[in-house]
């Protein structure tokens, strides 16, 4: 058992489900992997290898999740009860997956319950969820069903006079059919939030609904046929006192795929496949404005609405691959081609050769390497339905990727792994809603695209250790280093804060993660008690603007002659200060009969240390006379992420 627990690759998160900071959600264990970075202080999607989170496709049971997180930055839309762990692919990845630059993240489905019916009811401070799995007697039909509602946000919102309704559902039905299995998977999530931001009453509604039908047979090689339908929408609204503006972007998509993987003998398997997708975008707008009556007539509402079918975008891909997964020497070589036809744009394509090698040296050493070419359309920090498809017309990003890993297993309890990676971004168009130039980016002209294109590189290394001396104790520790730079065009700024000209230079990128020391461990006592702790010490992010603050320097207002802050040129900025986060977890499990009841308390950021994001710059209060004299004092203080307080997740779960 002990050997089994440590036998898995560390690139597969074999972090036990009772690790601190995961909130008993196996998908969050990805943040404990070496070289990974959460967007902010343990929240949000994961950045791998110095790339945007959008560069990593998240898949579950063969399905790519268009919007894998609630509200883009929140919990996974797949319930914890259906996920067993997380696997992160190597740099090149299999040619069966494409259209992303970075390593893929696979949420591993929980094992089938067999003939037994099992249920899970969980109530924690965030959500209430219920799920069940089992086999329909006599039919061999495996059914998994679940639903979740985030109660605390709804309750807290009601007290604050805002609205936060988040929920998701899950249905999986698998039925043997012919020589294979027919599997229907339905996933959906809805987020409905209303709050005031900067004084503006906003409302947002995100909905992603997916249904996937797959037939797969492992007889005489593997044949797989799949058909997927997606309905996604993002809606934003301003709810003013007398005017309401709603904008709804909708995407309806259909995808089909076919793959055959015949065996050629001698352990070698061939893979051939194709897929295609059609995505229709629609933009609806409605506004209601209050109008005071004219000449004594009563007031009324004026409604304006429009619905525009923006068009259909098409994409398709072909792959061919040969691989040998058996024996001490394992390899795969493949070629993938993709074609995109964006809405209102020219068709373009890509070719991606990929190679992966792994060699065992005795029982203790394994060395692997991968390399290849990858492409992805312009990306927006995180996967965003509708916007991602609309951005195909901006063209492709291209990266040459590669990594080398070595694993050393000196004893059953120990496992060491080291990894080196490098990514050469030959063409990058990594956009972000947090950029000051975000709005004009949505409708870029070809000239604008040329100006925003960049290139760059990301590279790093990690050293990780897994230690499992017994079934009761476990430890994971790692050091990782990730550097990520982009060569982009930006404005240089003079001491008066006005642009002095443009420059093209290397800028440290938002996902540069210079140093991270991380450790996570746990101890399972008798009588069902368990304790766990996770510690992460990491260096600060570069202050080049965008996701983080931009460093400023003292300057002079040219009109008034008073001091003012002016931006430091983006290629000359420093870094935020380092920070430490400690997560703690305690749990107690009872087993009355066939039931299992677990009570857990998982405290994120028990260290009460907010992630530094830069500096908040301002001026000291001054009277009009002081301002007229130019008597202005510049002030600055450290700025940090708003989530600097401990976040306790208290929950109880009943399992059968």
């Amino acid at each position, binding site marked *: 058992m002990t050997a089994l627990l440590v036998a898995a690759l560390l690139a597969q998160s074999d972090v036990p489900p009772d690790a601190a900071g995961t909130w008993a959600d196996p998908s969050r264990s990805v943040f404990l992997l070496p070289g990974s970075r959460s967007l902010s202080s343990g929240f949000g999607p994961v950045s791998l290898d110095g790339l945007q989170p959008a560069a990593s496709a998240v898949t579950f049971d063969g399905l790519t999740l268009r919007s894998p997180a609630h509200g883009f930055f929140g919990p996974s839309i797949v319930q914890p009860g259906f996920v067993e762990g997380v696997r992160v692919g190597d740099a090149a990845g299999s040619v069966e997956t494409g259209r992303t630059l970075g390593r893929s993240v696979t949420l591993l489905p929980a094992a089938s319950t067999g003939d037994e019916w099992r249920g899970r009811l969980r109530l924690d401070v965030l959500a209430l969820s219920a799920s069940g799995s089992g086999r329909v007697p006599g039919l061999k039909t495996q059914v998994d069903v679940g639903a979740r509602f985030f109660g605390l946000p709804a309750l807290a919102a009601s007290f604050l006079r805002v609205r936060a309704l988040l929920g998701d559902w899950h249905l999986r039905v698998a039925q043997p059919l012919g020589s294979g299995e027919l599997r229907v998977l339905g996933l959906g999530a809805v987020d409905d939030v209303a709050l005031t931001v*900067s004084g503006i009453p906003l409302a947002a509604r995100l909905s992603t609904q997916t249904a996937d039908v797959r037939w797969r047979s492992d007889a005489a090689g593997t044949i797989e046929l799949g058909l997927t339908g997606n309905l996604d929408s993002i809606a934003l609204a*301003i709810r003013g*006192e007398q005017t309401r*503006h709603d904008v709804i972007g909708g995407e309806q998509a259909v995808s089909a795929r076919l793959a055959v993987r015949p065996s050629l003998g001698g352990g070698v398997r061939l893979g051939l496949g194709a897929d295609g997708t059609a995505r229709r975008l629609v*933009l609806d707008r409605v506004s209601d404005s209050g109008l005071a009556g004219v000449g004594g007539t009563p007031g009324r509402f004026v409604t304006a609405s*429009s619905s525009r079918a923006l068009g259909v975008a098409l994409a398709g891909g072909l792959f061919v691959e040969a691989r040998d997964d058996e024996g001490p020497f394992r390899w795969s070589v493949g070629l993938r081609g993709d074609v995109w036809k964006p809405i209102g*744009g020219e068709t373009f394509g890509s070719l991606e050769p990929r190679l992966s090698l792994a060699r065992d040296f005795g029982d203790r050493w394994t060395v692997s390497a991968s390399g290849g070419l990858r492409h992805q359309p312009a990306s927006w920090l995180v996967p965003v339905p509708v916007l991602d*498809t609309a951005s195909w017309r901006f063209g492709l990003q291209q990266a040459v990727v590669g990594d080398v890993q070595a694993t050393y297993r000196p004893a059953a309890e120990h496992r060491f792994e080291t990894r080196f990676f490098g990514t050469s971004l030959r063409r990058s168009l990594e956009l972000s809603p947090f950029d000051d130039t975000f*709005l004009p980016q949505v*409708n870029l002209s070809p000239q604008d695209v040329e100006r925003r294109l960049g290139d760059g590189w990301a590279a790093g290394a990690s050293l990780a250790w897994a230690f499992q001396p017994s079934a009761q104790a476990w430890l994971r520790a790692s050091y990782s280093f990730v550097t990520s730079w982009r060569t982009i065009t930006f404005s240089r700024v003079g001491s008066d804060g006005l642009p002095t000209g443009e420059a093209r230079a290397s800028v440290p990128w938002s996902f540069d993660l210079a140093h991270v020391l991380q450790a996570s461990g746990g101890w399972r006592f008798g009588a069902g008690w368990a304790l766990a702790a996770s510690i992460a010490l990491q260096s600060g992010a570069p202050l080049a603007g965008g996701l983080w603050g931009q460093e400023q320097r003292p300057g002079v207002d040219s009109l008034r002659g008073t001091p003012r802050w002016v931006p430091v040129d983006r290629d000359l900025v420093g870094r935020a200060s380092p920070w430490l986060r400690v997560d703690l977890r305690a749990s107690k499990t009872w087993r009355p009969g066939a039931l299992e009841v677990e009570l857990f308390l998982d405290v994120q950021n028990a260290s009460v240390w907010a992630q530094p994001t830069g500096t908040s710059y301002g001026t000291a209060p001054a009277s009009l006379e002081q301002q007229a004299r130019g008597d202005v004092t510049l002030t600055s203080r450290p700025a940090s992420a708003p989530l600097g307080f401990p976040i306790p997740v208290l929950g109880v779960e009943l399992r059968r």
Partner: protein
Amino acid sequence: MPAPPLEATARWYAGDLHVHTLESGDARPSLDEVASFAASRRLDFVALSDHNTSSHDDFIVGAQARHPRVLLVPSVEFTTYQGHLNAFGASQFVPFWLGRDGVTLGQALQRFDQQDAVATINHPTLDLGRFCIGCAWQLPVVPGLVRAIEVGVGGWDETGALFDESAIAFWEALADQGVHLTAVGGSDDHRAGVGLNQTQSPMGSPTTLLYASELSVTALTRALREGRAVVKLRGPDDPFVSLTPLDVLPRVQDTLVGSQVRVLATVTGGKGHRLAWIENGVTAAERAIDTDAFTDERSLEAPAGRSVRLRAEVRVEGAPRTVTSHLWLAPDSPPGPPVVVDKAAPRGCPGCGSAELAPLFAIVALARRRRR
């Protein structure tokens, strides 16, 4: 004594009716910076519409002498908690504290009218809660004293894509009630184009064109009163469309007196887009613009005792890009009540090609910062 015109040619003059200077307190540019930037944007005039002050007038003469090609129009942004309006051509202070000391909107409009200024409702549907106090129009509209309305609420790329269509609907709803308003646009530029964030529009976005006999405040004011205005919602490079009556009829400001008229629309720079005729607030016809210049003719008929209106739009990917003011027709002078048509929800252009998602994220961008 009025200053001589900067140009004595009858033509379309391009300008911006909503620009702020240092005198506003929340804006940064001097008059020289405003004039220089306006010239770079190929504008012929800008209205200096500072918040509740005409103090820029002290500097206009000198600045005008230094920038003889851009007309600096004295104006005021009458800023209240229940709405903002511009008084184009105003140079005397008018109390703005409505509801106190007996100050009323009617009085203020009368005082602007006495200065021969044209009152324009600013950003009528820009309701952003506490973020932009009083920005949406909540006050009554006084026909005859309010003569224009902003249908271009900042540039299309910034906030116009979100608010322009509702502003146009607001304008049409007022027209349904017989209120004649000239369509204008205003950038509300507070920075003369320098260091703008994603929600702030530079001067000229949108661009308002006025057909005037000369480049002077008097002539531009008259053009506004007569409805001789076209708004380019994105900026100076947008297509242009103008309406010309083909029949000779008496004209009282923006109204032709008669029971029938043929109108010619002339479009330049619009090849590949569509021309829409909007009659009494409803799209009556659309044509593909396949040449440059492109012309199309339409007839308008007014039933006895009623008035009707017609305007044209150049639509790009299904959305309005250039908007003319209404041309009204009435068999009698003064005109009777307007014809009102039941309006179905407008439909866009199927398969129009490129995505147009700016409005979707304009809302998010507005949460960053916006000053009015």
